[in-house]
C-alpha cells in the first residue's frame, strides 16, 4: 500500500529507506548522525531532507516505521543457574531478541551483582534457572535479592515453572515491574525462545523506547517496533526461508561489522550429517552472536587485546604499521572516517580480524573421539560448513575496496579442522544497507521485503 519510510536509529547513524510498494522498489536511502542526546528528530530531519534531495521531491509516506539501537541499544542482564545450561539459554534468548547482554550471572546472585545491574544501567533483567520441575530454590532466592535491593527495571522471569507462583509473590511483595514467561530451558538442553522474545519486544515498545528519548519522535512517525539487530535477524530469516512462491536462498550467514560490535547471524540447522553426535544445549535455527569487544571504533582496542606482544610485533612488521597506535586513534575519535589510503588499509585489516574472530566464536566445533567402537565425531555448536551464502553488511564492509577478503575471514582460511566454518560460500553484499529496513518491512509485507532484499543484496563481482 503506497509509500513506506523505514528508519533505523543506529548508535551512530540514523538511516532512512523509502519504498514504493506498487513499483516493488527502493525509492532511495539517506543517512545522518543520530542525535539522541539532544533531540532525536534533528538528525532524523537532516536525513529526511537528504532523502528528498536524492529523490528530487518530497513524498507523502503512508506508513513510517522504525527500529532502534540508539542510546546504547537494548541492554540486558541474563541470570541463570548453571553456566552451560540456563545461563547460556538465557544469554541466547536475549541475543535472539536483539539485545546486548552486558551482564551474565549464575547461581545465587549477590548484592554486589545487583548493584552492578543498577550501575550498568541495564534495561531489562532476564531471570532464569532450573528446568521445569527442577531446582526452584536458587531462582526464588535470586528474585528475592532483586526485590530486596529495590530493582526498578523490568524483570522477566523465565525459569522453573514450579517457581512461578513464588516469584509472582515476590514481584507483588516488592512492587516490582515483573513479568512471568515460559521457561527458557524447560528440559535439559532444550531451548525455548519464543515466549521470552515476544515479552522483550513488548517491553521494548512500551518502556525502553521512552526511556531512551526515542518516544519523542513518535508524533512524527507511526511506530518504533523492533530493536535493530532483531530486524536484521528477521530479514536474514526471510531471505533464507523465502515466502509463499518467492523462493529463499537457503542456509546463510550474515556478518555485520559496526563501530561498537560485530554481529554474526546464522540461519541453518545444527547439522546436516547423520554420523555425528551432538553435545550440549540445543542451538537456535536463527542464531545471533554479538562480540562487544570487536568493532571498528569504540571496540577497536578489543581486536588486538588478546594478541600476544609477539603477534603484534609480527603484524607491525608484516604490514608495516603501528597497529596499537592506529587502534587507539580510532577509539579516541569514533566518528572518524578513513581520510587516505593508509586509513583504508588499517580499517580493512581490522575488519578482516573482526570477521575472523567473530566467526571463531560463532561457529561450532567437531572433534574425533577414538572409542573402542572406532572413531566417532562429536559436535558442539552449529555446523556451518555447507552454508551457501555469506552476506556482509555494515559501513566498513560496504565501503571496502576488497569486500571479498573481509567476508573470506569467516571461512576456514587457517585450515583449522575442528572449526565448522563455511567451507565454500558465495559472498554477497548488502550494498544499499537495507537489511534492517527490510526486516521492519517484513513485519507488514514479507513478500515485498523479500523481493527487494533479493534485488539489492548482490553477489560480489
Amino acid at each position, binding site marked *: 500500500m503506497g509509500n513506506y519510510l523505514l528508519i533505523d536509529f543506529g548508535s551512530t547513524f540514523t538511516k532512512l529507506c523509502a519504498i514504493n510498494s506498487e513499483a516493488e522498489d527502493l525509492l532511495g536511502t539517506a543517512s545522518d548522525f543520530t542525535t539522541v542526546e539532544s533531540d532525536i528528530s534533528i538528525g532524523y530531519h537532516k536525513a529526511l531532507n537528504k532523502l528528498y534531495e536524492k529523490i528530487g521531491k518530497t513524498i507523502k509516506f503512508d506508513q513510517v516505521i522504525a527500529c532502534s539501537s540508539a542510546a546504547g541499544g537494548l541492554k540486558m542482564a541474563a541470570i541463570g543457574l548453571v553456566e552451560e545450561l540456563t545461563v547460556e539459554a538465557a544469554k541466547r534468548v536475549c541475543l535472539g531478541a536483539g539485545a546486548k547482554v552486558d551482564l551474565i550471572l549464575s547461581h545465587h546472585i549477590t548484592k554486589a551483582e545487583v548493584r552492578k545491574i543498577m550501575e550498568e544501567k541495564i534495561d531489562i533483567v532476564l531471570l532464569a*534457572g532450573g528446568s521445569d520441575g527442577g531446582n526452584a530454590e536458587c531462582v526464588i532466592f535470586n528474585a528475592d535479592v532483586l526485590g530486596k535491593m529495590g530493582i526498578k527495571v523490568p524483570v522477566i522471569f523465565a525459569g522453573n515453572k514450579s517457581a512461578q507462583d513464588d516469584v509472582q509473590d515476590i514481584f507483588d511483595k516488592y512492587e516490582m515491574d515483573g513479568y512471568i514467561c515460559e521457561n527458557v530451558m524447560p528440559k535439559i538442553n532444550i531451548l525455548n525462545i519464543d515466549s521470552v522474545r515476544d515479552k522483550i519486544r513488548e517491553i521494548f515498545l512500551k518502556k525502553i523506547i521512552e526511556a531512551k528519548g526515542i518516544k519523542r519522535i513518535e508524533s512524527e512517525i507511526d511506530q518504533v517496533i523492533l530493536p535493530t539487530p532483531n530486524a536484521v535477524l528477521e530479514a536474514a530469516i526471510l531471505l533464507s526461508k523465502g515466502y509463499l512462491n518467492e523462493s529463499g536462498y537457503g542456509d546463510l550467514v550474515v556478518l555485520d561489522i559496526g563501530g561498537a560490535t560485530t554481529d554474526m547471524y546464522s540461519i541453518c540447522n545444527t547439522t546436516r550429517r547423520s554420523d555425528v553426535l551432538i553435545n550440549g544445549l540445543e542451538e537456535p535455527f536463527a542464531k545471533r552472536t554479538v562480540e562487544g569487544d570487536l568493532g571498528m571504533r569504540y571496540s577497536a582496542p578489543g581486536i588486538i587485546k588478546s594478541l600476544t606482544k609477539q603477534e603484534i610485533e609480527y603484524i607491525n612488521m608484516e604490514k608495516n604499521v603501528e597497529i596499537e597506535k592506529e587502534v587507539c586513534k580510532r577509539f579516541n575519535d569514533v566518528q572518524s572516517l578513513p581520510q587516505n589510503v593508509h586509513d583504508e588499509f588499517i580499517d580493512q585489516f581490522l575488519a578482516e580480524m573482526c570477521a575472523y574472530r567473530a566467526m571463531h566464536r560463532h561457529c561450532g566445533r567437531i572433534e574425533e573421539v577414538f572409542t573402542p567402537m572406532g572413531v566417532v565425531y562429536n559436535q558442539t555448536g552449529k555446523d556451518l560448513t555447507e552454508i551457501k551464502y555469506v552476506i556482509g553488511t555494515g559501513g566498513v564492509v560496504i565501503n571496502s575496496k576488497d569486500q571479498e577478503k573481509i567476508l573470506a575471514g569467516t571461512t576456514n582460511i587457517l585450515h583449522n579442522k575442528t572449526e565448522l566454518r563455511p567451507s565454500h560460500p558465495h559472498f554477497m553484499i548488502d550494498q544499499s544497507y537495507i537489511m534492517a529496513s527490510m526486516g521492519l518491512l517484513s513485519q507488514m509485507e514479507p513478500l515485498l521485503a523479500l523481493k527487494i532484499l533479493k534485488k539489492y543484496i548482490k553477489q560480489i563481482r
Partner: protein
Amino acid sequence: MKTIVIGVIGADVHAVGNKIIEYTLNNAGYNVVNIGVLSSQEDFINAAIETNASLILVSSLYGHGEIDCRGMREKCVESGIADILLYVGGNIVVGKQDFGHVEEIFREMGFNRVFAPGTPIDNALGNIQQDLGE
C-alpha cells in the same frame, strides 16, 4: 516425582542399554533426564543441579569406568549437591576382575551403589525404590 539423571560416561557410545534404562525408569514413574552417550562428569552434575535430581545413574560399558568416574563425588560436593546418590553400572573395568574388589574401589570413590556386569535394570529398580523411599 523424583528425578534421575542417566547417561553413558566418557568416550563411550553404547546407546542401547541407555535407552532400556530410560524406558524402565520412566515406566516405574520416575522423571528421567537422559543426557545420552559421550557425557562428561560435568554434564551429569550440571543436569542434576538444574533438575534438582535425587540420583545420578552412570553407565559405562567400555572398560574405562574407573578413570572416567574418578573425582566425580568431589565435584558433586563442590557443586553443592554433596548428598546426591551416585550409582554406577555396566562393564566398568577391563576384563573379568573380582567384582568384590571392583565394588570396593567405586565405593571408596563415593558411589553409593555399584552394579556387577550383566545386572538387568529391573533388578536395580528395587535398590532405587529403596534408596529414594518410594
